[in-house]
């Protein structure tokens, strides 16, 4: 995209790792306003939280290996599934892609030197860390960790004696971080695009982060006020969710899901953006239906904000509301399907190179399709009565969140790793890790789908003997999955120090990040590039060097 002269003149510049700026040592990181350093900071913490979430999940699964309380008491199990949910959703899945890769690559991909508000960006990170610390603090103080489930449904969350207020306050802080990140990215996309970077030439990852940011800005305040109301209720007993004082607990559920359903699109949209960016590079072919993919992202963000009631089909909302929410839920499947078809159409007749990033994307498409289709089953009213609160639900959303967002995240790890760190991991090992995880994942979560179909309720620490085989299979699958995870992270970690030098453009990408050195220098571009063609225009790109 840049002219060739510019690319060579910036070669001798030192990378952002060496260019410390005003402070030295650790301060050069925690006081930085460089979007790439902030991205790396998030990277470290998100991975740390991811592993704590995995450990919590591992013990939950271990408990379910045999009926009758295999290794723990019910209260411990309640805390485990609550913490697993809080950690994974609020500390990993929601922030991961926007904060790590959005921070690192959004400014580069639009040809900017940084985000619009670099210092607010740093503030976001501090809020994220503070919120996470408060949540962690709530686990070890008071009368024990929260046991309400990550949804904090009233009236139980108002009555339980465990440490709900502190955890809720931590989540409120995390929400502020999320809103500020969204404000930053929307403003950056509007104001800092390089000359010639029109809306039709934006990489689809930028489009995805842009749509996501809008949801972050518009939906997060609602959970903010909802969580604040829990605090107010607990400390002052106002009564807005207390039936004894005229309040309605169902309204809490409404307000919770008004945020938390759009939040599932905060989780999945950025991953879809990553897939849209990677697939054309490894098919050596222009993306099929650029505008359709970009606009379907916007459509998902918009329609996805109107489907929250499908979490409450059996909560006692009116039949008419349930019908409407079910219809809208079916509608939101359309833009998701548009994306899937466009990716597959991009692969069609492409010169496919099966490198690890593409393999992870293919896994995404496969797993996300299962997740999406199972979503349609529970989105219909009659089956939902049967499936609600069974293992089917966690089975479904793990296919979306882990199979979709998780594998999208892993795809991004493998795609952008050489750019971020200048070194390459072992691709063979990456394929092994990919295969192991894919097998483990399906054994694990497909068993959950089957368990739910047969009526195993979720969030129970014990079960009837008839579910024994499937639970054993699921636990077995979780071990394979974790083995794959360890293999993948070991491989990446090893690549960080011992990997071969990767070069500036190992995959032959045409977006801007591949036209600058690996790792990028501070402020990315010596001269702001002038954009003359689209992000997946490989022929133009080859002609112009």
């Amino acid at each position, binding site marked *: 995209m840049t002219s060739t002269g510019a690319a060579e003149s910036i070669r001798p510049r030192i990378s952002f790792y060496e260019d410390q700026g005003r402070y030295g040592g650790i301060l050069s990181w925690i006081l930085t306003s460089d979007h790439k350093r902030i991205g790396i900071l998030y990277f470290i913490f998100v991975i740390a939280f991811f592993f704590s979430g995995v450990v919590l999940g591992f013990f939950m699964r271990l408990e379910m290996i045999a009926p009758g309380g295999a290794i723990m008491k019910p209260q411990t199990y309640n805390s485990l599934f609550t913490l697993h949910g809080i950690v994974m959703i609020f500390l990993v899945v929601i922030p991961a892609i926007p904060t790590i890769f959005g921070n690192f690559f959004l400014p580069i991909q639009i040809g900017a030197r940084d985000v*619009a508000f670099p210092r607010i960006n740093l503030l976001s990170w501090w809020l994220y860390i503070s919120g996470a610390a408060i949540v962690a603090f709530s686990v070890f103080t008071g009368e024990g960790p929260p046991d309400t489930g990550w949804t904090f449904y009233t009236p139980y969350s108002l009555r339980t004696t465990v440490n709900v207020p502190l955890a809720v306050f931590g989540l409120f802080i995390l929400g502020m971080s999320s809103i500020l990140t969204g404000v930053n990215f929307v403003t950056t996309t*509007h104001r800092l695009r*390089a000359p010639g970077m029109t809306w039709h030439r934006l990489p689809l990852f930028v489009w995805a982060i842009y749509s996501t940011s809008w949801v972050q800005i518009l939906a997060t305040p*609602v959970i903010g006020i909802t969580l604040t109301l829990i605090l107010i209720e607990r400390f002052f007993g106002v009564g807005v969710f207390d039936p004894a004082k005229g309040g309605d607990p169902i309204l809490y559920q409404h307000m919770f899901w008004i945020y938390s359903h759009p939040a599932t699109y905060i989780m999945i949209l950025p991953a879809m953006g990553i897939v849209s960016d990677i697939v054309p590079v490894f098919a050596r072919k222009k993306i099929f239906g650029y505008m359709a993919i970009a606009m379907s992202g916007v459509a998902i963000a918009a329609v996805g904000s109107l489907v929250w009631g499908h979490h409450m089909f059996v909560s006692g909302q009116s039949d008419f509301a349930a019908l409407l929410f079910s219809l809208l839920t079916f509608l939101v499947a359309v833009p998701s399907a548009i994306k899937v078809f466009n990716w597959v159409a991009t692969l069609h007749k492409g010169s496919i190179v099966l490198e690890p990033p593409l393999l992870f994307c293919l896994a995404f498409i496969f797993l996300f399709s299962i997740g999406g289709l199972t979503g349609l089953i529970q989105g219909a009213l009659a089956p939902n009565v049967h499936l609600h609160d069974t293992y089917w639900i966690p089975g479904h959303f793990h296919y979306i969140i882990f199979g979709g967002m998780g594998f999208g995240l892993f795809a991004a790890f493998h795609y952008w790793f050489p750019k971020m760190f200048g070194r390459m991991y072992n691709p063979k090992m990456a394929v092994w890790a990919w295969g192991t995880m894919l097998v483990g994942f399906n054994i694990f979560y497909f068993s959950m789908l089957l368990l739910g179909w047969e009526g195993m309720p979720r969030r129970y620490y014990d079960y009837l003997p008839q579910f024994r085989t499937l639970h054993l299979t699921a636990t077995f699958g979780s071990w394979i999955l974790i083995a794959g995870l360890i293999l993948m992270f070991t491989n990446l970690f090893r690549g960080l120090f011992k990997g071969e030098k990767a070069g500036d453009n190992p995959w032959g990408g045409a977006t801007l990040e591949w036209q600058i050195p690996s790792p990028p220098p501070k402020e990315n571009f010596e001269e702001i590039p002038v954009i003359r063609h689209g992000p997946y225009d490989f022929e133009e790109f080859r002609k112009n060097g």
Partner: protein
Amino acid sequence: MALMILRSFGKMDDAKGLVAGEVRDATGARLGMWLFILSEILLFGGLFILYSAYRYKNPVDFHHASRELDVLLGTLNTIILLTSSLTMAASIGAIQRGQRKLSMILLIATMALGLFFLVNKGFEWGAKMEHGIYPNAPALLARAKGEILFFGLYYVMTGLHGLHVLVGVCVLLVMLILVSREKIHSTHVTPLENSGLYWHLVDIIWIFLYPLFYLIS
């Protein structure tokens, strides 16, 4: 339609390769502030949803409870806040014309009006509490459920709004210092303008709270 919205937003950006830090991007700062205000509106939006739902369920109780609020005090506070928005806007106009002193006087007036509003609010709350109307009070719990909710929401919503007024006063204090040190001047007004936007937001939220609590009886 999505495209049309984008076009209108597109006017704010002409992809001319702005660089953060090098150029002061006033439009960008304003856009960021508007986005933040949007999120504030949705924060209060959650409470307005609760209000609507509960008023729909308990119209008579809300009517009775509303009658007990002091309309005079509420009206006075409305006038105070509206006037403060006027002085706020005038302060921005003054600094744009280079009248630093006048701008500072108007800023101080805005802050004083904000504090005056809070003091009034304090008296109002105090009077209600003396009559045993506060969250979880035995006298309040003995009343009809709709009235419990009305006063609960009254405290939560005016409380959160009061908190915003307080934050606004603090922000204006910082602005006052910046203006006095000439960090804000006729060619660089953006921080003051953004603070003004925030102040007007607080004002507008009150414009909705006032009729919903004081004028529905």
